[in-house]
């Protein structure tokens, strides 16, 4: 459905934009209908930038993003509006997505004004009730209220309900639960799981590995703008190949398992990998820093549906 083809993003930084900062480098992956793909990375890894490019909030420097085979960068006015009928985003901080002067359900009213002016009042409120029910909100509790009267979880679910009104195909969920309390965040996460059963594709952007692991079919691990490892969630978490993925997994605090124990387990798993670089075993001719136009792919398929980048971690190190 959604496909990213070797996209890059270069920001101009410095006093007069004289310096380049490559936030995203040569990233390719796809999101299918009814699939949750988690995009995992630490701060500064470019994960939000990718979300912004998919939502057309930021132009792509290189590469193409296609939805059902159509390049999204060509969309203008009418087509762009149609694009947003299919693709919507929800962001980290639900409190700042609402105008505190207006009632919270104004975000829903605006959808009607923009996209469904011809729908009659009763039919529309039926639609609103159905989408609120889909996110398990009680209409009487959230409609006609101001943002400060609702909890973070309610506001966040209202934003998802707003996106669902449009009958979207793809939801870009950028850190949508990191602001929520532990006892309510799992409900929003389960909601994503239910929505995918209805055929929605979700790009779940997060820094939290355990959340990504819980909900997604596919996992993409980003580091400094590059994909280091990607594939079926089971494989990426079950038998990580890249040293960076392993170090991330070793640092996640887990319940019922201490850090030392996790380290021992990972070391045992990776015993056969020390001193090797799966990527350069596949593409011996690739340069030290793979990537760039026309070069070999940046990822090698280590096993069915499990891709890994060159194992090198630093600029001059060996892999």
């Amino acid at each position, binding site marked *: 459905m959604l496909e990213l083809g070797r996209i890059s993003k270069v920001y101009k930084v410095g006093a007069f934009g004289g310096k380049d900062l490559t936030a995203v480098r040569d990233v390719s992956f796809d999101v299918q209908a009814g699939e949750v793909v988690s995009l995992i990375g630490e701060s500064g890894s470019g994960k939000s930038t990718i979300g912004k490019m998919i939502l057309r909030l930021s132009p792509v420097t290189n590469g193409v993003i296609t939805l059902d085979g159509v390049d999204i960068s060509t969309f203008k006015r009418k087509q762009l509006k149609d694009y947003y009928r299919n693709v919507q985003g929800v962001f980290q901080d639900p409190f700042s997505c609402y105008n505190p002067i207006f009632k919270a359900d104004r975000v829903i009213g605006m959808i009607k004004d923009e996209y469904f002016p011809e729908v009659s009042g009763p039919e529309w409120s039926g639609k609103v009730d159905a989408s609120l029910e889909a996110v398990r909100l009680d209409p009487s509790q959230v409609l006609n209220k101001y943002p400060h009267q609702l909890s973070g979880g309610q506001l966040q679910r209202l934003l998802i309900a707003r996106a669902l009104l449009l009958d979207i195909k793809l939801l870009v969920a950028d850190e949508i639960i990191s602001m929520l309390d532990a*006892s309510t965040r799992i409900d929003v996460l389960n909601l994503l*799981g239910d929505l995918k059963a209805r055929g929605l594709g979700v790009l779940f952007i997060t820094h939290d590995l355990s959340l990504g*692991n*819980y909900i997604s079919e596919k996992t993409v691990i980003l580091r400094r703008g590059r994909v280091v490892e990607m594939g079926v969630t089971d494989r990426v978490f079950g038998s990580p190949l890249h040293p960076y993925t392993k170090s*991330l997994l070793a640092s996640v605090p*887990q*319940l*019922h398992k201490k850090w030392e124990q996790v380290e021992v387990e990972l070391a045992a798993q990776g015993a056969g990998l020390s001193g090797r670089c799966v990527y350069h075993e596949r593409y011996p001719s690739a340069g030290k820093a793979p990537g760039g136009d026309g070069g070999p792919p940046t990822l090698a398929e280590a096993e069915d549906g499990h891709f890994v980048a060159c194992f090198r971690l630093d600029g001059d190190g060996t892999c």
Partner: protein
Amino acid sequence: MSRVSLRVANLRVHYRTLRGDVKALDGATFTVGDGEIMGLAGESGSGKSTLGKSLIRLDGRMRHVEGSVELDGKELPIWDSARMNTFRFREVSIIPQYAMSAMNPTRRIGRMVAELVESRGVGFGTVRPELERRLDLVQLSRDVLDSYPIELSGGMKQRMVMVISTLMNPSLLVADEITSALDVSTQKAVAETLVSFRDRGYVKSTIVITHDVSLVYQIADTIMVMYAGKLAEKAPTDVLVAAPRHPYTNLLISSLPEVGVRFSEKRLTGIPGSRPSRLQPPVGCRFRDRCPLAFEKCVEEPPFVEVERDHFVACWKAY
């Protein structure tokens, strides 16, 4: 944990607002042993930060209602900000929630530390060798003393503040959400530094305030869980995680996704309902409305009592 270092008895701290007192901390009685790292876990609004802050400094809106705090056998005059000055930094110290912005941006770090220790009547020259030793321990270069805070990364600032806070070898250290803004790998390093400070005797006991139970599970000796201004449960780490006695602890722990738990295989559930108002808290057990085990007796407030050695619970069902 032979000797008790901190003894808090029936501590109540309220916030003054125009609509009345918010009972943020409503009667806390507990002890922390010598050399104990106690994790203080709870959701937002549970009163965990209020408890941590009240041990060191009550700000203008906070009012000490009743209760006493004893550190190493001496009473801490927490209601008297001026008298607390002799204890702060030397006896009790805090690593604040926003350590990122805790340092003076207009001073080089070394100069700031010098001003700080001199304000306590200690010459910078006498502490400098120890300061440098500790910088080595947290793997910061000594050059940071000649840098401005803005030149350091988030993780470096966090470690610098940790070194400064513990420079006078306080008896009690309060670490308030010190890892929540950090990436997983930095988070692990910071958490392990806390343990090494205890192991080296820089601090005697530590209270680690966090919303992340799995993080304190990694480093703490005991965990105390708070809910809506009350203590819910305190027990040795392994006991609390493996066999919690309070229904809230139990539900909280089972709502946390872990690496390895998948939505498709095991659907986790959150805690239905929302936390009660602390302006007019309900009578009886605060968790009653959301508790699956609630029965008639819960309209009486359960006392926080020791049900097994070192295991305290406030729930009628647990006795």
